[in-house]
């Protein structure tokens, strides 16, 4: 076998390996169009508004959490920060969106500030009760208070995964909690 054919074989092998490389997140198959998501926010503050359809052309990371969440949500946000850092100085083409599922405590401004504390580019939005009801239905996800919602101490059950919507608006990946930021970045590099 000539060196040339060896090289060709090596390139083909590496390309095949690339194509078959598993995702760190759970790949959706088929990757259907993501359900709609539109949070009106407040008119005064554009940072409190988000509509998924407007993000077409970018990869969008979505997390449904709440700001009174001391462990899982900040852990996920920190993993996003590491992912963004791992993607390098070119931060274009990826959006990071935290959606509160606790409209009772999370004002639009609070969610925006919460997301921003992890990274200035992170968006945080709070749906109204009606918007939340609609998005839980359309995304087929569960979120509900646990404990006594009349106190400030209740917790909120919420989806565990980060949802990743690709540039064409299709729901492509669900990234489970605990996936390292560097591995999230590897998935995002393939989608960006």
């Amino acid at each position: 076998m000539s060196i040339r054919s060896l090289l060709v074989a090596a390139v083909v092998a590496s390309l095949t390996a690339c194509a078959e490389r598993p995702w760190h997140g759970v790949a959706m198959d088929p990757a259907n169009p993501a359900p709609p998501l539109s949070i009106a926010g407040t008119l005064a503050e554009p940072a409190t508004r988000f509509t998924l359809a407007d993000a077409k052309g970018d990869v969008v990371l979505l997390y449904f959490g709440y700001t009174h969440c001391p462990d899982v949500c900040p852990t996920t946000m920190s993993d996003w920060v590491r992912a963004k850092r791992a993607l390098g100085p070119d931060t274009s083409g990826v959006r990071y969106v935290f959606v509160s599922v606790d409209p009772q405590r999370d004002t639009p401004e609070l969610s925006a500030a919460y997301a921003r504390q992890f990274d200035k580019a992170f968006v945080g939005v709070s749906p109204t009760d009606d918007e939340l009801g609609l998005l839980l239905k359309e995304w087929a996800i569960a979120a509900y208070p646990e404990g006594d919602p009349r106190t400030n101490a209740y917790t909120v059950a919420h989806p565990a995964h980060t949802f990743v919507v690709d540039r064409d608006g299709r729901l492509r990946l669900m990234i489970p909690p605990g996936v390292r930021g560097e591995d999230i970045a590897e998935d995002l590099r393939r989608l960006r």
Partner: protein
Amino acid sequence: MRKIFVACASALALGACERAPEPAADSAAGPARAALSVHEAWARAADSGAMTAVYFTLANGSAVSDTLTGASTDAADEAGLHMSMQQGNTMHMAAVRALPVPAEDSVLFRPLGAHVMLMGLRRPLADGDTVPLTLRFVSGQTLEVRAGVRVP
């Protein structure tokens, strides 16, 4: 675990171990008192949120099991033991009344699992700050912990 106990006990004598500042002479009160120790304690930085969590490894080097029953700090209005749990695709968090620390074993407090939740932070916690935390056990023992604040 025996080795950790020994290492910790000697570190304690030097005042280096992260635990209650019990004087060495107090060991006469019973070896079990000196056996609980906390390692690698850290708190997640939070600059505008009212909540955060503290994580650590809680080791029990003694032959007697104990049970962690609570925590307190002057850095927040409330400190509580909590556990994050994933059930199916949904994440839950539950308050934990008591967490057993078996003899010659250790319990990990880590992200996505057991943690001490701090509610109503009285000041922002920035990278490099320290959070003092007191852990209470059913035996009556308390442990003073100093958790370094980190941006993970």
